[in-house]
């Protein structure tokens, strides 16, 4: 589970890649190939990204992208179930896959001479997956176990899921990536077959390779393995724009828990949806003013200063495919209530509207961004993630290169302007986790709002 957290942090770390270091190709069948050289060690990271995730789904089939990700390890016409992983393993590789609301990606880390092994297997399962009911019946149970592990039995995760579903009534941002339990229970092989047919094709995929490789050699391998694959007619998802919110929303989630928790979010634009392209960068700086390290305002002022919160955070992802939320969350300190901690967060927001942030704070964030740009080069996996994620949501990977510049251009006035424009009650949804007693041996999850359960 540690790896997941790491991935998530990596995903949301908005840092720059070494300028001009990516070589871009497109095969005749539409597959995009991005290659970045990192010659520090004789290794390579290979990732295949598909433009599909939970935000492409609709009611009744939530979680299908993620279930399909699991089934991608369950055999093709040429390779029986499990063989993919055995071959990668015998080649000294480590592998995995991940699904988010905007993309599904598969990756291997290998000694550099083994890149062809990865390409051959990935190309095979891009078009020739053999979905079998026998395998599906077992794997759907694994996914339901995963849902219990990640959501049902984690009060904060349960709260987050309900919160997002309340903040958005129409936009597919509301769909949980893991899927609602009832949808998982009613999923069938046809759902997966349709989903695979619709989205898994070279013209809906991006292959990212980072490591001790020569771009032209990688291109030759890609042509050999991915080149022969037939493209698909890809019909993009409907926009499903969220209707304007008409006032503040507040929900309470009751679940057995020991510690209360609150999360709140304001509807904000992202890079893809913003009319003013500087705004997402200003929101990014704003998130850092509040929570960019231990010297940022939330920790300094409400955790260490007033000690109203035991922990507090803020977050924003400017690279989402659809308009999203500027998030704040907190756990109250023992002697304080949920209301106290919410008021403390509101006071922080009010201050951002009332007074420009200081030049020292801006300077600190800009220095951090520049330093992080160096540190991130220690991870070839992360470098691959960065470009893959941008391309997968339909943004240009070169945006990664202008990130530092765009952050440096943000002024205190712009930060104040986005706070005043977007951090308003009418764009706000708040969720509160109201802990129920942890009745030892009580009926599991009986009170958990919205939690479906096993057969």
């Amino acid at each position: 589970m540690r790896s997941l957290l790491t991935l998530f942090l990596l995903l949301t770390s908005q840092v720059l890649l070494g300028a001009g270091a990516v070589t871009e190709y497109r095969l005749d069948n539409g597959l995009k190939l991005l290659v970045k050289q990192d010659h520090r060690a004789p290794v390579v990271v290979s990732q295949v990204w598909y433009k599909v995730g939970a935000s492409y789904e609709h009611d009744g089939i939530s979680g299908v992208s993620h279930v399909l990700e699991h089934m991608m390890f369950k055999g093709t016409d040429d390779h029986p179930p499990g063989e993919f992983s055995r071959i990668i393993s015998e080649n000294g590789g480590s592998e995995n896959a991940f699904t988010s609301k905007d993309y599904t990606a598969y990756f291997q880390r290998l000694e550099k001479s083994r890149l062809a092994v990865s390409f051959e297997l990935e190309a095979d399962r891009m078009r020739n997956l053999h979905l079998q009911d026998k395998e599906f019946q077992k794997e759907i149970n694994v996914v339901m176990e995963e849902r219990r592990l990640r959501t049902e039995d984690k009060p904060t995760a349960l709260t987050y899921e309900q919160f997002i579903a309340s903040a958005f009534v129409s936009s597919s941002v509301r769909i949980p990536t893991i899927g609602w339990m009832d949808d998982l229970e009613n999923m069938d092989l046809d759902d997966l077959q349709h989903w695979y047919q619709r989205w898994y094709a070279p013209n809906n995929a991006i292959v990212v390779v980072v490591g001790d490789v020569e771009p032209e050699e990688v291109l030759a391998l890609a042509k050999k393995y991915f080149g022969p694959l037939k493209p698909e007619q890809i019909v993009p998802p409907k926009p499903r724009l969220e209707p304007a919110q008409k006032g503040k929303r507040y929900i309470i989630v009751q679940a057995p828990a020991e510690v209360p928790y609150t999360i709140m979010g304001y509807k904000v634009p992202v890079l893809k949806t913003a009319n003013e392209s500087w705004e997402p960068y200003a929101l990014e700086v704003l998130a850092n003013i509040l929570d960019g390290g231990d010297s940022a305002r939330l920790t300094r002022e409400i955790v260490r200063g007033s000690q109203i919160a035991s922990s507090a955070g803020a977050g924003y992802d400017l690279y989402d495919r659809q308009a999203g939320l500027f998030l704040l969350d907190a756990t109250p300190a023992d002697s304080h209530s949920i209301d106290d901690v919410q008021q403390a967060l509101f006071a922080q927001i009010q201050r951002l509207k009332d007074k420009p942030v200081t030049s020292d704070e801006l300077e600190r964030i800009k220095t951090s961004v520049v330093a992080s740009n160096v540190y991130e080069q220690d991870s070839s996996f992360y470098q691959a993630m960065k470009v893959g994620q941008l391309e997968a949501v339909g943004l240009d990977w070169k945006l990664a290169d202008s990130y530092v510049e765009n952050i440096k251009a943000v002024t205190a006035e712009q930060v104040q302007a986005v706070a005043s424009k977007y951090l308003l009650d009418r764009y706000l949804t708040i969720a509160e986790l109201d802990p129920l007693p942890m009745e030892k041996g009580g009926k599991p999850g009986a009170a958990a709002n919205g939690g479906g359960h096993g057969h």
Partner: protein
Amino acid sequence: MDTRKIIRLGGLLGSLLLLCLSAVPAVHAMPAIQHWVTDHGVRVYFVPAPELPMVDVTVTFAAGSVRDADNPGLANMTSTLLDMGAAGLSADEIATRIESLGAELSTVAAREMAMVSLRSLSDSAYLQPALALFADVMTQPNFDKKDFERERQRKLVAIRRSEQSPSAIAGYRFFHSVFGEHPYAHRVSGMEDDVKALRLKQVKAFYKRYYVAQNAVVSIVGDLDRKAAEALVQQVTGALPAGSRAAALPPVADLSKANEERILHPSTQTHVRMGAPGMHRGDPDYFPLYVGNHVLGGGGLVSRLHEEVREQRGLSYSVNSYFSPMEQNGPYLLSLQTRNDQVDEALAVMRDTLQDFVDKGPTEEELVSSKKNITGGFPLRISSNSGIISHINMIGFYDLPLDYLDTFSGHVMNVTREQIIDAYQRRVSPETMVTVIVGGES
């Protein structure tokens, strides 16, 4: 303090947005490790890495929770308080200065180690002031009463929150049950009552005893030469008193009988932890046990446990086994989690799979396959500065030979089926294992 984490959200949201097929095992070429001991006894391990303009430094003290004695949580509290004010600077001032330099500073305590780490740009305009702050945190912590009380309250909330998690409960109950009276038994954080009972004077005394030169290992990877590395070590640890190395830990007793503990929890899943004392760093059976376990449950998406529990039966999302070699025998742990009404079945499959492996060992094919994965994947483990520093730190802390990385693959290739069967039969007894089961009624 990772300044790159733009979304932190109190650390709670991390796992919500991205789903992995499975937990990823740690990833890793052959770096030449330079080693020396300073005049006042600091052991130094250094690998130059000029490719990126950055430096990583970790100072590790034998000051983990095994040193808590009658005060569980003491090592953890001491570690936490280091950067909460030092050399007359407040926590706010330290954080602001470090982050204004683009540096990352962290402190963490585990069972055996207490680590203080710094990542900085190698440009001396950034590195020098960052090292000065790093030295202050390690050598002149304020240990202010107000900071102590606040951090105590925060830890109490964190401990209570962990009681929401069947996995966390199973985790600490497992250690308790396997290690009994041994210092490995108690939770690093301590329990609620332990933390309530801590006193600042205990923290100060703990710091004075264990944060000393003889008890420290410094690991450095980055863009600097040997001379600069020597100067760095002097700058960072020069003010530490020589002191003495922490005493050797007592041996861990083997278990004489099985023990099963069931704990009710209002969860939809039941978490199972099964195991016993395993092996230690430098153990003569290290390689047969390590390679054997890779076949049984350590090989990620390819292992017997994964095959039997998940692939064949769909019983659990995550199922694995691993040895945690420590100074003394650390735990051998098998774990899974499943829907409440399936726990007996899942546990039976896990036990049968283990018993069969102890009886018969791996097939020749499985062994070859595991060796290929371990040795073929070895370059991945040390392909980054962060990968290298974690390995040299482990080599330094446990006094392993300097050629440990060079000889690792050779040792793995030499392991035979017979050695694995012999080692498993002598060292792993399913009939005297601890099983901890935490979950709801079916």
